């Protein structure tokens, strides 16, 4: 099933672009959603490309991560249609798509998932001040540095918290994986990971190549490093939020803008309960609440909102870190949500985005289970 091919050009990005171009030229897919450098501004945004020539600005390896594209995949696939679409996604975006498929918000039937080993992302605030202007040369420079030092390079300080504690930067479910080559050959290795992917690659007439040799060892090293970071971060977050009072301090700068909810790929309700009449309290209610406590922090219901979000998405959280990225007041939400999600998922022996077949824990039940939950 797995076949390997190599594409060599002047730079990693050129090699990847020629792959995307010939992918569209095969006609196997009608459109391609890929991060693309926008004219004039240099912003890198997911762009739905149908003209093969337009892939010449694709920039899939950049550390820019303005939004989780899983929500866009949901928009593209939530209703059946016969046009096949290919999407380039980071591993965390794939996990979010898998969760959305299980929640009936997306469909994989006419979807071709292309991914790569993730080189981590910068928060928007970091990428947009200094790195965006450098253009595509920076992307090539960044991946070379990242690969040669196996993720312990100088850029480590710039990457976002969620990426520093990522649960899995390697794509699990994908049809095609395209990776910059670890040698200095300025080429990309393209690997088919499914029958559909293999079929598409066969149409493209690429040169066969040997599978990369040192992959496994490097992966193990990266995973160990991330695991250590995760342990450290979770411990510090748990100390910071050990009880409700401390949690209140943690959220004290929250302004209830709900950006974290909007940015979250697995928070999918069309109308969130926090936007409904339920939270249109009577004016008198605020005064009453203040009177029982002496004072009431406004806007209220902040902690209620975040705790509810933990309950709603804890089992589906894929650790993409977009909640923290979207926060206008820099609350380190990703560490908190990932640490809570880790506990919740372990409790149900569930891994979000792991497989399509595995049921979401709250969508099923068994008669004889969880007997330790009941009783006094």
């Amino acid at each position, binding site marked *: 099933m797995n076949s390997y091919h190599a594409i060599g050009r002047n730079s990693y990005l050129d090699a990847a672009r020629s792959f995307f171009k010939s992918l569209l030229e095969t006609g196997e897919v009608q459109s391609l959603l890929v991060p693309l450098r926008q004219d004039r501004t240099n912003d890198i945004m997911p762009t739905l490309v149908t003209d093969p020539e337009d892939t010449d600005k694709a920039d899939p390896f950049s550390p820019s991560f303005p939004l989780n594209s899983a929500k866009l995949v949901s928009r593209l696939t939530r209703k059946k249609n016969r046009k096949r679409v290919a999407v380039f996604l980071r591993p965390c975006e794939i996990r979010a798509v898998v969760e959305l498929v299980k929640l009936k918000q997306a469909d994989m039937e006419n979807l071709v998932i292309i991914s790569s080993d993730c080189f981590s992302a910068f928060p928007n605030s970091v990428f947009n001040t200094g790195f965006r202007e450098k253009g595509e040369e920076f992307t090539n420079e960044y991946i070379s540095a990242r690969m040669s030092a196996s993720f312990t390079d100088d850029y480590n300080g710039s990457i976002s918290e969620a990426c520093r504690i990522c649960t899995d930067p390697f794509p699990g479910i994908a049809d095609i994986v395209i990776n910059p080559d670890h040698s200095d050959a300025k080429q990309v290795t393209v690997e088919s990971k499914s029958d559909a992917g293999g079929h598409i690659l066969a149409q493209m007439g690429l040169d066969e190549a040997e599978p990369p040799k040192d992959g496994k060892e490097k992966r193990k090293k990266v995973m160990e490093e991330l695991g250590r970071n995760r342990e450290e971060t979770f411990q510090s977050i748990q100390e910071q939020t050990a009880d*409700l009072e401390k949690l209140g301090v943690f959220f004290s700068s929250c302004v209830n803008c709900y950006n974290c909810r909007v940015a979250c790929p697995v928070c999918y309700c069309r109308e969130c309960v926090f936007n409904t009449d339920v939270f249109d309290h009577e004016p008198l209610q605020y005064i009453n609440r203040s009177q029982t406590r002496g004072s009431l922090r406004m806007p209220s219901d902040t902690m209620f909102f975040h705790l509810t979000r933990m309950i709603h998405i804890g089992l589906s959280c894929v650790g993409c870190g977009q909640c923290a990225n979207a926060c206008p007041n820099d609350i380190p939400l990703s560490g908190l949500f990932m640490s809570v999600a880790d506990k*919740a998922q372990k409790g149900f022996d569930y891994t979000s985005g792991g497989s399509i077949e595995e049921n979401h824990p709250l969508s099923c039940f068994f008669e004889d289970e*969880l007997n330790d939950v009941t009783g006094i």
Partner: protein
Amino acid sequence: MENFEPRIIAFVCNWCTYTAADLAGTSRKKYPANVRLIRVMCTGMVDPKYILKAFLEGADAVLVSGCHPGDCHYINGNFKARRRMKLLHEILPNFSIPKERLRLTWIGASDGIMFADTIDTMVDQVRKLGPLNEDKRMVI
């Protein structure tokens, strides 16, 4: 906390535990007044938000109680409730709300005595744990 009287919110299902509470009353079986009963049609309709709201608004403990497995009036509402409680049991202890403060029990319609005993035990346990939020100002 010498004179601490815990406040317990209990979500009880119409068909089993509420009837059991009624039976405890008609059989003159006493149980502590610390518990405030909220009758719901089924434990399966107890949204985790109700429980969070109770804790954030000053409850020291929450009890959810319904029909025994297999006895649910709506066939499987209590199984769904059990999964949600499991999720809350994984998440709330991160913020010092231990499992002892959030209980799920099955109390059938004829178990009036068991209902009174459950409330007795729970009030004792929560009294030992002490109040949940002494400084409630930040908590909401």
